[in-house]
Structure formats: C-alpha cells, structure tokens
C-alpha cells in the first residue's frame, strides 16, 4: 500500500524518558520520512517532523526512536509515543509475517480522539493504513490462525469496538425537541477507523483459516455480549456491520448458538419491559428471521416459548414502526412452519392491540392479514370471536386508513373463505359495525367498502342477514334502557353497601359506630 520507500531517518525528540517506557517496546519498526511532510503543516508544531510513515523494518533492539507525546484525552493518561507505521507485509520474509501481523495488531490498539478532527492527523492516517493492511492480510491468509494470533486479533478488535456510546447532545433533546421524528441518525466521527476494524472482524470470522474450535476461546461469551451491546449504536452503518458479523458468528460457532439466542432475548426483554429504547432491534430481528427460517420441524418447545415470550410482546413498544417489517417476517415464518401456532399469534396480537395509535393499528392489520393467510380453519375457529370483535372496532375507526385496512381483509380470497365458512358466528359480531358504517361513516371509501361487505353477506345468506338486522334493531332500541339499568344496578349496590356497613358497625360496638356513623 505504501509505495514510497524512504530513507531511514531516526530522530530523537526532547520528550522525557518516562514516555519511552510506555512506548518503547511496541516500537520495533521505524524509519521515517518526510513523506508526510505535506500534512505535517496541519500540525503546525515543531514536533511534526518526528512523525514518520515507514515501510522499512529495523531490528527489534533499537531503542533510539522518534518520540511524540500526543495530548490524547482518552482516559486521562494515555501517552501517544512514537506512533509510527511498520513495513508492508510483502517487504518482509514470509517467516516474519506473522510476527509483523501481531505487531501491527498491537499498533492498532491505540485509540484516537475523533471529536477533534484536527488532532493527531498523522497518527490517524498511519493507523488507517495499517488497518487496511491487516484486512488484506486476514483475507489472503493461508494456514490456520494460531492461538497467539487469535488472542491478539480479539484484543485489537475489542480495544477498538467496545466503547460506551456518547450521550446524545442535550441540544437535540431540548430545543429541537419538536421534530424528533425526523432526527438524523448520529454518525460516529471515528467511523474511518471503526469501519475498517469491522471489515477486519468480518473477514476474520468468515475466513476459512479461522478454526471455530480454537477461536471460541477468544470469541467467547463476554465478547459476544459486548458485541451485542453495540447494536444500540446510533450509527446505521455500524449496525449493518454488526448484523452481518453476528450472523456469521452464529453460523460458525455452533457452541455459542443457544447463548446468542438467550442474550438476544435478554435485550428484547429489557427493551420491552424496561426501557422501550434500543436502536438495533430491527437488525437483531433480521438475524433471527434467518435463524427461524432454518429451524427444523417439528419446532422445539424452546423456540415456541421464544415466540410467545419475546416476539409477541415486541408488539407492545410504541416505536414498533422501527422494526415492524422484520418482526412481522419472523412471526409469519413461525406460522408458516407450524400452522398450529396461528391462534396463539392472533391472540397475542389482540392482547397488544393499540388503543389510540392509528398508524400502529394499520401495521397490526397488515400483519394480521399475513398471519391469517397461513391460518387453517381449526385455528381460525379457536380465536375468531375475539378477533372479529376487534376487527369490528377497527371497521368503525374514525381513522379512515384503519377502517379501510380492516375492510380490505375481505379482498383476500383465503380470508374471505374462512369468514364465509364461519359466517354464523362472525356476522352477528360484526353486524352492528357494518350497520353503523353504512349509516354514517364520514369517509366515502370506507362507506362503499362497507356496503360491499354487507352485500357479500346478504347475497350469500339473506336469512342470516335478516336475523342479524332484526337483532341489531332490537338492541339499538334497548340501548338507553340497558344503560339506565346498569346505572340503577350500581346505585342499588351502593345502597346495599351502605346498609351493610351500618349493620356491621352497629354490631361492633357503640363508640365505633357513633364515630363512623356520620360518614356512613
């Protein structure tokens, strides 16, 4: 990658000796250059001459290297000493390459502060180049990675990736609070390095030279947990990489599969029951979608529990829109694999059915149609009563998209057949809704869709239709009466309660009953 071969020019800086103790032993390679000179002007300090881009190997024993202390803010006291590039792989004998690889990995463990774009430009570029070389090395490696190498790889990846995300700037929350919805995803300024590290990790996991049996000692449970923590990143590019990488790990490391599923479950539970905030739910569901796709039949009990305990409750959070497509895919996968699950799923949807959020309701109806598509008559019959009570409510929704979407169910042949077969149960449930819409729904489209549905029933079974109509008219005339009766019942209950209270107090004793008598 580095084309110039440059003259050896070791330099010495005036930095104090204790800096050397920190950096000295990493610094086997040096040999520098003023090739970076054009950039060094950015630094504007006399020290820039010490930075070097090198492509020359020199023996390990050299201690006399260029020093530079950079004012890195990372955890207070990191000293950046003598951060210099190392020779290219092709410039060292094959036997030396593995050593060089490890050393380059070590070099890349240094983390730079990207919040200040003017800082450490030179070092950042050296690291970027080195990371690219590492990617190339991993991609073209032949021969299994040894224990030491695996350890160093994981160390470098961990040092770079595992960080805690910065809080959102308060300005976004307070002043611009109004259009939170259109908020730009925040991009990690360190991405120029992170991206290559992710690319490196991906190639490493995918490499045929990575032996899962050896690597599982380093790509272990804590490593996976930390990787999963990163899914909360605000940066969509980062989540995209994580998704691909985790999927590869799941594929390659069979031993970790149950653990990964469990850990993802825990993320879901925290999201559903505690925080309702997580950026990576869609990506995790996408991985699961493909995992579920591969489940063998008959489904294991464990997987069904996952459906009921995690996937179905995922319908609850208000930010469902962020991951609904992926969730819906997972759910329909389950139903398509085992149609006996259909009524469980439908009852689950009913449990979490939105009450005030119309756009969420439309999503539920979309998903419902997909599930019903795969539902067979026995399961349908098991849940049709509560289901159509809900559908009736949707048909009456003042939000025309909700009403329209509910009425569209009749456009689906499979669903229409299920309904027609069970019309004796379904029509009485939805009849009042049809009638109310036909009389006075404000929206023209909803109105005419309703008339269509009504016509379907009327043509098919005029007798049943008439029966329902009569029942509806009768109920309607009694509506006020029923309301009055309910009020009366509660009033009588209240009176009864008062009377009882009085009696029991009277038996308790005089002083107490005197005291409470006035309030009772």
């Amino acid at each position, binding site marked *: 990658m580095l084309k110039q071969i440059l003259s050896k020019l070791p330099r010495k800086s005036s930095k104090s000796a204790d800096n050397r103790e920190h950096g000295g032993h990493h610094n086997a390679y040096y040999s520098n250059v003023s090739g970076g000179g054009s950039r060094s002007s950015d630094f504007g300090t006399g020290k820039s001459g010490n930075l070097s881009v090198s492509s020359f190997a020199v023996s390990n024993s050299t201690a006399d290297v260029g020093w530079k202390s950079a004012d890195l*803010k990372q*955890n*207070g006291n990191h000293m950046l000493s003598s951060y210099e590039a190392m020779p290219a792989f092709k410039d060292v004998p094959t036997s030396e390459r593995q050593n060089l690889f490890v050393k380059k990995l070590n070099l890349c463990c240094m983390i730079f502060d990207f919040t200040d774009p003017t800082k450490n430009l030179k070092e950042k570029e050296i690291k970027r180049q080195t990371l690219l070389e590492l990617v190339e090395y991993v991609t073209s490696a032949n021969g299994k990675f040894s224990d030491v190498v695996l350890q160093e790889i994981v160390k470098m990846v961990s040092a770079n990736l595992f*960080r*805690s995300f*910065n*809080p959102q700037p*308060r300005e976004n929350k307070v002043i611009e609070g109004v259009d939170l919805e259109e908020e730009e995803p925040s991009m990690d300024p360190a991405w120029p390095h992170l991206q290559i590290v992710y690319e490196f990790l991906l190639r490493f996991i995918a490499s045929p030279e990575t032996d899962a049996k050896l690597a599982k000692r380093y790509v272990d449970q*804590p490593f996976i*947990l930390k990787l999963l*923590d990163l899914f909360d990143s605000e940066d969509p590019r980062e989540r995209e990489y994580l998704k691909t990488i985790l999927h590869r790990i799941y594929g390659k490391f069979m031993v970790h599969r149950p653990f990964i599923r469990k850990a993802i479950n*825990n993320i879901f*539970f*925290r999201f559903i*029951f*505690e925080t309702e905030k997580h950026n990576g739910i869609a990506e995790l569901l996408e991985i699961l979608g493909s995992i579920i796709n591969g489940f063998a039949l008959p489904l294991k009990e464990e997987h069904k529990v996952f459906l009921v*305990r995690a996937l179905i*409750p995922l319908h609850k959070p208000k930010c469902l829109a962020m991951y609904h497509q992926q969730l819906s895919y997972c759910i329909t996968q389950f139903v398509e694999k085992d149609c006996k699950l259909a009524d469980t799923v439908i009852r689950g949807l009913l*449990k979490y059915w939105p*009450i005030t959020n119309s756009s969420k309701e439309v999503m539920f109806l979309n998903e419902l149609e997909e599930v019903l598509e795969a539902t067979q008559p026995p399961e349908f019959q098991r849940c049709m009563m509560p289901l159509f*009570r809900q559908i009736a409510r949707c048909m009456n929704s003042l939000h025309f998209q909700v009403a329209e979407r509910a009425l569209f169910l009749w456009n689906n042949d499979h669903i229409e057949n299920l309904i027609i077969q069970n019309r004796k149960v379904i029509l009485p449930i939805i009849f009042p809704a049809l009638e109310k819409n036909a009389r006075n729904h404000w929206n023209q489209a909803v109105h005419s869709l309703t008339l269509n549905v009504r016509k379907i029933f009327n043509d098919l079974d005029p007798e049943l239709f008439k029966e329902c109509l009569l029942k509806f008219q009768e109920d309607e005339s009694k509506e006020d009466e029923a309301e*009055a*009766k*309910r009020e*009366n*019942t*509660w009033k*009588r*209950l*209240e009176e*009864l*309660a*008062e009377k*009882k*209270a009085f009696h*029991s107090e009277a038996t308790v004793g005089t002083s107490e009953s005197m005291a409470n008598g006035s309030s009772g």
Partner: protein
Amino acid sequence: MSTVEAPLYPIAVLIDELKNDDIQLRLNSIRRLSTIARALGEDRTRSELIPFLSENNDDDDEVLLAMAEELGVFVPYVGGVEHAHVLLTPLETLCTVEETCVRDKAVESLCKIGSQMRENDLIERFTPLVKRLAAGEWFTARVSACGLFHIAYPSAPETLKTELRSIYGQLCQDDMPMVRRSAASNLWKFAGTVESAHLKADIMQMFEDLTQDDQDTVRLLAVEGCAALGKLLEPQDCAARILPVIVNFSQDKSWRVRYMVANQLYELCEALGPEPIRTDLLPAYVRLLRDNEAEVRIAAAGKVTKFCQILSPELAIQHILPCVKELSLDSSQHVRAALASVVMGMAPVLGKDATIEQLLPIFLSLLKDEFPDVRLNIISKLDQVNQVIGIDLLSQSLLPAIVELAEDRHWRVRLAIIEYIPLLANQLGVGFFDDKLGGLCMQWLQDKVYSIRDAAAKNLKHLAEEFGPDWAMQHIIPQVLEIANDSHYLHRMTLLRAISLLGPVMGSEITCSKLLPVVVNASKDRVPNIKFNVAKVLQSLISVVDQSVVEKTIRPCLVELSEDPDVDVRYFAVQGLQSIDQVTMSS
C-alpha cells in the same frame, strides 16, 4: 326503574360487567370493587369475591393494573388485619404477569398489606409467597420477589432469615439480567432490615458481586444504591467496603457509570468520616469535575456546593475552587448552567474574602454568559448573592443581564425573569427599581405571547403588594390605564386582567375612583371578547367595593350587557348578576 326490584347478587353483577366488550366499563367496575365488597359483607368478600378475582387474571393489563391498585387498600373490606392474608393470592398472580406496570403495582400493594399483617401471618403466609415467587419459573415472578424481602425479613425466625438471605443471594446471581437488575435496585431496601453482622458479610458480598456483573446495566443499578447502603454501615466499614468500589467506578470506561457516581458521591460522603473524604473521595470528585463527558461534568457541577459544605474551607479553596473556575468557562452551556444554579451557595463556605477575591469574578462572568439559562440561574439565587457581597457591587453587573433576559427571544426565558421581578424588587429597593425596571414591567403587558402578558399582570399585583398602594398609584396605575386606548383588543384584555388583580390590592376607594370607570367604559367596546371579560371583571370586583357602588355602577352595567346580541357576553353578564344577588342575600 319500573319493574319490581329483582334480588341483587353483587358477584353476579361484577361477573357480568367484567364480561363486557367495552374496556372502559370493565375498568369502571374494577374501580368500584369496594362497593361490591361492602355490599357482600366481609365474610362473603373473603369466600366469594377474592377467589373470583384470583381467577380473573386474563383481562387487559389496564384492568389488571386497576385491580392491583384496588387490592392494596382492601384490608378493611375483608375483615381487617387478621384476614389480610386472603388478599395475597390474587396479588401473587398479578406479580407474575408480563406487564411491568401491573407487577410493580402488585408488589407495592403487597408491601402495603404485608406491613400491616400480624407477625404470625407474615411468617406463615407472606414469606412462603416470597419464596414461591423467588423460585418462579419465569423471570417476572423472580423480579417481583426482590421487592418483597424487606417486608418478610424482620419478623422471620432465625433459620428462616438465613434462608431468605441465601435466596436473595441467588437472585443476585440469577441467569436473567432482568432479575439481577431488580435485585440490585432493591438491595438497599432489604439491607436496611438485615442485622449488622449479616449486613457486613452476606449483603456486602452480594453488593460486590453485583458491582462486578457482566452487564453494564446491572452494575449501574448497584452503584445507584451504594450511598443508601453506605449509610447503613459503620463509617469504617463503609470506607473499607464501599469506598474502593466507588473510587474504582469513578474511573469506569462507561460515562453512564461515572455519571451515576457523580450523582451519588455527595450522599456517600455523609456515610464516611472526614479522613476518607479527604484522601479518596475528594480526588475522585475532582476527576469527575474534569471529566471528558459533559453529562458527567453536569452532574458533578450540580453538587459542588453540597460537596464544599462537608469540606474544610482550605480544602474547598485549594481543590474545588480551581475546578469551579474551569467549569465557569466550560464549552458546554449545560455545565455552566448547572454550575450557575448552585455556585452562589459556596459563598458562606468560603467566607467573605475568598468570595470577593475568587468567587465574584466567576459569578460576574456567568452573569454575562451568552446562554440565557446560565444568567437566569444566577439571578434566581439573587438573595444569596446579596447577603455576601452587597447590592452595590452587584447592581451594575446585574442590570444589563436583566434587561437582556427581559427581551430574550424565548418566551420561557422572559417568563422566568418576570417571575423573579418581585424578588429583585425586594432586594434592590424602590429607588433602583423605579429607575431601571419600571419600564420593562409595562413593556411585558404588551408582549405578543399570552403567558407573558398574564405573568406581567400578576407581577404588577406582586409589586403593588411589595411597595404599597401609594407607590402603585404613582408608578403603575396611570401607565396601566393608558392601555385602555390601545388599538389592539388583546392589549385591552390584558388591562382588564390587570385591573381584576390590582383591585383587591388597591382597596375600595382607588378601585371605585380609578379602576371601575375604565371597566365600565370598556363595556362599550366593539369586541365581544372584551365585553364578556368586562362582565367577569365586574363580577370579581363585587367583593372589593361597597354595596352602594355595586348597585349604582356594577349592576346597571351588567344589566346592559345581559341584553347584548352576543351569547357569551350575555352568559357572563347573567353570571355576574347572579353573584350580586347571592351577596345581597347573604348579607
């Protein structure tokens, strides 16, 4: 109703209502559970209602939440404390449902009931319930269990106590992070009931395990409770067991952990003696004040005064004051705002010399901050400032800041400064006020935001109270009354609002001679909104002026308005006339 009263079966009514399709009706019936219980009587409530409720747990979460809440106050309806245990069964089921709100409410109700129960019932009924939940198959039961130990523990016999401690220890190491988080956040409650010897051994072991958990979220909650835990320990134990953990956490990689420490540090100091504060906590705190992450500095800056109060003045001046100087120039406005809201409290700690020499420059620079919240936070603590350095030194810096805030483009900022005007008036005195601030107070009456105009009217009332009617007569009333000729009807509305507030303060005489004529005049306004506001103001002035004035001036005006073509004007005029009649009748 017309039919003969059919016999009434309370349980049947409830069952029937709970079958209804309409969730609102189901919710209403649950909210009236106590009526049903009282109608049934205590015996049948125990033998019929409670068993029914125990089985009816398949409803919407909304309904279950209401049920969990109602059951918490149900002890009187089941026959008092000796029967309280029958309530445990339905609540136990509610502790295991999925919805967090329902579980939390059920735990809360169980704690309420448990704390009234007799010792024997606690041992025989309550503790077994806690153990069952703790061994629950699904995490929801175990999460709920963590919040109940502190009720069960105190009355348990020795062997049971040992068992409870060991169960809690297991919950701290549960397989599910959800359970460990619950154990971590409830640990201090449980710890408060445990004997000191076990506290040092068992509980501290749990605390240490939790602080080393794999999951960040668990560690975070462990830190959150550390100060409460520390206060339960002897100072030397706290120094030995909790301090190292906290000092370690103050350098954690995750800013959230450091943020939590910054919030807890002061509380923890209260549990420690002066020596460990000086050697360990002070350096940790100084590090947090200089943290890389603004959120951490915000949390730390907000505690700066409290922290100084427990230090000796020398230490505060030597270690904290330099940080305060840096923070006052921090790049984040929120850090500066947090500092500004507390920094004046440092003055009494530092003493007069250090305050004038070191604190005053900081204070003045914050008062000139470009971010309005910073200035506002300083001004809101004006009384503290005044005590230490005196008003003269202050007023020349103060005035430009106030004037600028008074015209800030965010109306909330303007609102905040208006609310501090009475305080300022009180501190600065009449002379200063007349010269500089009087104009501003009038200007706000014509602000384009309603809340500001309203606050401005209230402010005039406060000023009139502060400086007395004579002053108000001279400095407020004439200017206010001029608004009557304003061409904008909203400004004329503000005038009416101001009059209704000022009337009671100014007293009957001035109201009759100066204010009332303006109001009566406004009743001829062409805008109906003005007219019905006139009716409202007249109504409010009835109690201020004499009966004769009411009859002579107010009544005729209202009568005229009650024949207005506008329906709203008529409505409020009639209201006004009615209250005149009421006053006349009662007197």
